[in-house]
């Protein structure tokens, strides 16, 4: 009987993945999304409390230094600033959830109106940056892995260490000095996009911010790609492929690439999240009219609804990409 049973086991395929496992996967993802929503709620509380705690009386700022105390009290009444904090928070949150993010304190226009063009500009910058970062990271990581511990790899690692250790604004200032103002003067040092025009109508303005974002992104992501490529190149299936007499090109692109890609994908979506957060510095530096520079301006102008809206927006985007990374990672692991 032993003989029969074991042959049967040997010839029978491994059973297809059971349904319960798929169910647990859906369950895991559901739990993640729920946890993420809780995180977002926590962020909303922190954002609200932090903006309330900002120094300076909002009404005074709006009315200017010559305002009388009656005018200030009237303003506070109008803005609802004399109500308890909890109810202010509740009003704000219910407004945000229904899509009404309030009016700007500085210009009096609705926040959503002010931000829509800025969001579009920032998204354009981020998307172009990611489109550049992903293939470049793959290429750089692959080359470094193939020439592992050789001169090419060593100098790449050294250079990427320097870039990673340099703050974005230093890197950006250097690039501006080099190409925009002091040395070459070939590119515009500021990236002003006139309102109502799409960013790609001004390609020269985009080059420098994109270059900085891409360099920072590639140095980070390509190192992860390099490591996962090295793991794959040392795997037994690549060894077997070599022993089978396959060409280097086939081994790299058919055998190694698909397997090295998988662990890099979650990293890439975390990369996207960091690019969004990092855009504050880059946009401010190049005076690019995106949400990053809008945030800096709003903080300077004590424009609370704007600050709250932008931070919530960034946190949500960051959260979405992180979730995506987690889900992709889980899917990858279960495969």
């Amino acid at each position: 009987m032993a003989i029969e049973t074991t042959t049967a086991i040997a010839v029978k395929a491994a059973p297809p993945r059971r349904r319960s496992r798929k169910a647990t996967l859906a369950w895991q993802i559901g739990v993640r999304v729920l946890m993420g929503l809780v995180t977002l709620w926590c962020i909303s509380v922190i954002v609200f409390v932090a903006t309330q705690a900002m120094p300076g009386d909002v009404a005074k700022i709006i009315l200017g230094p010559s305002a009388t105390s009656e005018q200030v009290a009237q303003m506070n009444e109008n803005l609802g600033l004399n109500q308890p904090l909890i109810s202010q928070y509740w009003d704000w949150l219910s407004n945000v959830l229904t899509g009404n993010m309030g009016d700007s304190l500085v210009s009096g226009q609705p926040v959503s109106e002010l931000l829509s063009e800025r969001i579009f500009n920032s998204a354009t910058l981020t998307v172009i940056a990611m489109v550049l970062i992903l293939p470049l990271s793959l290429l750089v990581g692959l080359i470094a892995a193939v020439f592992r511990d050789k001169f090419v790899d060593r100098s790449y690692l050294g250079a990427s260490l320097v870039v990673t250790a340099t703050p974005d604004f230093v890197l950006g200032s250097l690039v501006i000095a080099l190409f925009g103002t002091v040395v070459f003067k070939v590119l515009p040092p500021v990236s002003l996009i006139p309102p109502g025009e799409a960013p790609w109508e001004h390609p020269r303005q985009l080059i420098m911010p994109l270059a900085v974002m891409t360099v920072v992104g590639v140095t980070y992501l390509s190192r992860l790609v390099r490591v996962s490529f090295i793991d794959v190149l040392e795997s037994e299936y690549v060894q077997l492929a070599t022993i089978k007499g396959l060409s280097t090109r086939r081994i790299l692109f058919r055998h190694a690439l698909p397997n090295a890609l998988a662990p890099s994908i979650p990293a890439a979506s975390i990369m996207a999240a960091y690019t969004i957060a990092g855009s504050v510095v880059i946009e401010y530096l190049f005076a690019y009219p995106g949400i990053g520079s809008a945030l800096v301006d709003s903080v300077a102008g004590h424009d609370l609804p704007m600050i709250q809206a932008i931070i919530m927006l960034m946190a949500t985007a960051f959260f979405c990409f992180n979730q995506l990374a987690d889900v992709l990672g889980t899917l990858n692991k279960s495969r």
Partner: protein
Amino acid sequence: MKAVEVTGLTVTLDDGSVIANDVSFSLDTGQVMGLVGESGSGKSTVGLALLGFAKSGANITGGKVVVGGVDLLALGPKELREARKKLIGFVPQDPATALNPAMRIGTQLTEGLLGGKKENLPRIRKVLEDVGLPSDDAFLRRHPQELSGGQQQRVAIAMAVAKGPKLIVFDEPTTGLDVSTQARVLEMVAGLCCDNGMAAVFVSHDLAVVGTVGDLVTVMYAGQILETGSREEVLLSAAHPYSIALLESVPSTRQRLPLVAIPGRAPAAGAKFEGCVFADRCAFVEDRCREAAPEMVTTSTGSQARCIRVEHVLQNQKLLVKEPLHHTENKGGDRQAVLSVRNLNASYNRTQVLYDLSFDVAPGECLAVVGESGSGKTTMSRCLIGLHEEQTGDFEMDGKPLPSRLRDRPKAVKQQMQYVFQNPYGSLNPRETVATAVTVPLRHFYGERGKAARTKAQEALERVEIPWRLADRYPAELSGGQRQRVAIARALACNPSLLICDEVTSGLDVSVQASVVELLRTLQDDGLSMVFITHNLAVVRSIGDQVVVLSKGRVVESGAVESVLTDPQHPYTQGLLADTLEVDRSDAETSDLTG
């Protein structure tokens, strides 16, 4: 002309240490050579070097590998690729990691062949049928992870055979397989080589496997061939002291033999030697052995051995004939069982894996639990120690009921029952010294610290023959066998009455396994009860008093080891026993039937 001629093959690491030294042999068409050695002996390095391949960090620095009239080592990169495509096949140790998870079986089978996919498909289908696999398109479209372990191994074999090579190198292809699957794979290998006129080199650590499949047997140690000859010459009348020692350490399913471990520790890969590489561990060593490296000599049995005292060894080894050990039956007598298990049912992710297990462990007795992979034996041992959550059943320890979950068990019970894991590389904390590892349970159970604890730890380590000077080393500085001893010492420090050993010897080399089995046997003589989980019937014979045979989560047979292994009643046990390979011995007629 021989089909394969290897002369002076040498592989060196980047730092200059030699891991395969002056390896020479030749094979005729259709001949299979078993290349046997323990871990670190360089056998896999030689296997890969036959394809002109060395792992990163190593280089082939000398010699010739002539296959079908072509010297592979003299070829340029492009010609070498062509030669690999048509002359030599390679079957890897673990097909689960050697087949690309991202590619379909069909692509992986056809890509290494000369010519296009279309023209090769008929041949691939034929080879798949030869190895007993389906050959339809649906099968070719599958990915490796959709196949069972046995199927993956067959795919790997088909991949190597399909090109119609002159030589196939098998690198431990049956190590991860169950005995019955292994038996079938070996039969297939022998048939394929014979039918297709291929020479084969079969690398293995298992003497029984090599003895079954090989026409020739070559024994490697520390990167050198120490003995080579026909199967009969090397296995039945071994001439080199190392071959003899290796054979002495192999357990048998037929009789309970004392196992003789090889003293000392196998040299690390690339170690340097003045004279004979085995001199430090050899029972026949003389001063002149250490002076110069011995040459290969032809012995009177017909084999070739690298030993200057080989004739003396041959004449004197007859004195070493071993007496089978005899059992004292009923050690436990009518005394109360240390542990009794009734109606144990367990499941894993809501799939039931154990059905109504019931057994007793008598004091001072070793209960061996044997079964193939997937039989539920590890789940069972985790149930006993209380680590498995999804279980129902009644346990009694010394007549008192025992809660099934570890966290419900009183501290005294936890101390009474200790567990040794399969993998000593994973079960010892890499950041703790040996002494710390052994004193932690002492502190936990007895509150002992400082000097008192160290004294007790020393006693425990001495019981497992770990010298106290190793106490301040970290696990990474120890060999596998030493680590497993430390893990056992850690369990012994608790002064347990029952030791649960989960496949404690399966990751170890035979000579190291012999020393661990002998150690456990002496502990048992001191009155320790044991549950010993294994897949290896020969180890069961060596150590067990009672045996429980598990198949698919059910007990199919149980009883005294002698009666079950000598006269198995259940067809499953019979099949298991029939499939277990045995190293032929000259003294195999003796039997310990009567006990």
